[in-house]
């Protein structure tokens, strides 16, 4: 009952919603970069939204299923292929045993999430299955997935008869992504505590100019390149907390956006924070892409987050109903 990796991707890892409650010991929450997409993949296969999934970058891993499985891929569109045939992502897919799942090219986005019905059978560390690469703990053996890894799945037996004579069945419903309420290349920000340290001109640059996401970008953070920002104050910031989405100003005048594997504390000025509802948007951006920032207020930030969660809940109710009916057949 294993999922075998037949070809390794680039730093594909097991992730869930993160490891909450350990930051006072320097252990960061981690978790999926795009938690909305991870939740959607789970919802499609009837799992709880916080179940562990495989986070894939491109080129992505290739998988071999030893047993029938109900799977779904959400987030980036990497042109999913089953046994050489292209199929749509964002649908639940029933696979017969000995199926091969591959990804051929990037059509859209940067990170795709693979969920399996029943979830992966992993031990977890400090109440989370997220892979903590620095600590070499959690996920699958505390590391990125490699060729010949066999990840145990909690498969449900009743899937076998449903797929008896077919290679795969794409179930006819999907998760519609929420319609973006604004330009997807722009992310909304709230001012950070050190915002006032920016010089007047630099404040304008942050919102009027575009920044490019450099190749020094990973799960810890995206380094941006743009016009240099200057501060009017040299006083050091004593190490203090940061958050997913925090925009820090580095000593060379460039910005870094902190992502899922960010450190728990930092001493660089926190000029702004990307709102939570736009973390998913950030997570699907690639190096080389341009990004713009636009100020909003806390009311809008919270409304957008609640709207996002409501959308997920509606999808969950609809998908679970359809899946239950299908599995009862």
């Amino acid at each position, binding site marked *: 009952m294993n999922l075998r990796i037949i070809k390794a991707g680039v730093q594909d890892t097991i992730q869930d919603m993160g490891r*909450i*409650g*350990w*930051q*006072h*010991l*320097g*252990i960061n929450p981690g978790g999926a970069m795009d938690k909305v997409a991870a939740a959607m993949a789970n919802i499609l296969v009837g799992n709880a939204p916080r179940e562990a999934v495989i986070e894939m970058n491109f080129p992505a891993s290739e998988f071999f299923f030893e047993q029938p499985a109900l799977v779904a891929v959400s987030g980036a569109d990497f042109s999913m292929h089953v046994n050489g045939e292209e199929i749509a992502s964002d649908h639940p897919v029933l696979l017969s045993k000995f199926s091969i799942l591959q990804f051929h090219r990037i059509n859209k986005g940067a990170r795709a999430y693979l969920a399996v019905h029943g979830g992966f059978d992993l031990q977890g*560390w*400090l109440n989370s299955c997220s892979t*903590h690469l*620095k*600590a*070499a*703990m959690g996920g699958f053996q*505390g590391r990125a997935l490699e060729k010949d890894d066999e990840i145990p799945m909690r498969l449900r037996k009743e899937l076998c008869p449903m797929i008896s004579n077919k290679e795969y069945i794409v179930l006819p419903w999907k998760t519609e992504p929420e319609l973006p309420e604004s330009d997807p290349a722009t992310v909304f920000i*709230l001012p*950070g*505590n050190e915002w006032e340290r920016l010089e007047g001109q630099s404040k304008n640059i942050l919102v009027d100019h575009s920044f490019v996401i450099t190749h020094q970008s990973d799960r810890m953070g995206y380094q941006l390149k743009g016009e240099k920002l200057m501060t009017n104050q040299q*006083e050091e*910031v*004593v*190490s*203090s*907390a*940061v*958050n*997913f*989405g*925090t925009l820090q100003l580095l000593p060379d005048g460039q910005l870094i956006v902190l992502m899922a594997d960010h*450190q*728990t*504390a*930092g001493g660089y000025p*926190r000029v702004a*924070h*990307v*709102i*939570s509802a736009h973390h998913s948007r950030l997570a699907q951006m690639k190096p080389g892409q341009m990004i713009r920032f636009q100020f909003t207020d*806390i*009311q809008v*930030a*919270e409304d957008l*987050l*609640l709207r996002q*969660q409501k959308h997920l809940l509606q999808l969950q109710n609809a998908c679970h109903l359809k899946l239950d009916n299908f599995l009862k057949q």
Partner: protein
Amino acid sequence: MSSTASYQIFGLGDTALVVDFGNRIDEDLNRRVIQYCRHLKTAAIPGTLEIVPAYSSITLYYDPVAISKSVPAGSTIQAWVKEKLTTALEQEWETTATKERQIRIPVCYEEGFAPDLALLAAQRNLSSEEVIRIHSNHTYRVYMLGFLPGFTYMGKVDEAIAIPRKPQPVPVQPGSVGIAGRQTGVYPLASPGGWYIIGRTPIKLFDGTRENPVLLEPGDSVQFFSISKDEFTDY
């Protein structure tokens, strides 16, 4: 204890609030930060995910979605949590006399374990022996953890051996004991680092397989003591 310390509260994005007691490294201030943290943990502010101390601030991470239904109309979730947080901070409470833990950590300061010791000594016009004596002759406070799992920010080191961090990080071995400014700390894991490395401990400050993966906690007192290369190997 009542809150006589002055503070300001600001948002850290839309999922956290920071209580800032002043941007400085001060032992008494940090002691209050940790007392406040203990108090806030018992205050059960709705939606709380984590309460995290730093040098001179506390961060409350909360789940806005979980508490959205409790927030009265006309208020943002953030304003509501801030109000609850302020109420908790202003409350009178009993400080339980918590004894700060004293922990001794062996350090081998010998060649092969201390790549930057000679450089630091030269820059501060001291002999290596003097640097070791000054570093191991003082009890340090663990102000906070961060950067890596189990990485402790301790201080303050004697002004005589203080040195600004390196401009570029270099690879650092696990167990390395470093100095940056008036801070000292131990790298629990192999990592790039910018601190001057003056020794190495055989003790594992972080071990993910232990029930308590991290050895030191904010508020602990730490004393380093010198061990030889042989003692390090046999530890």
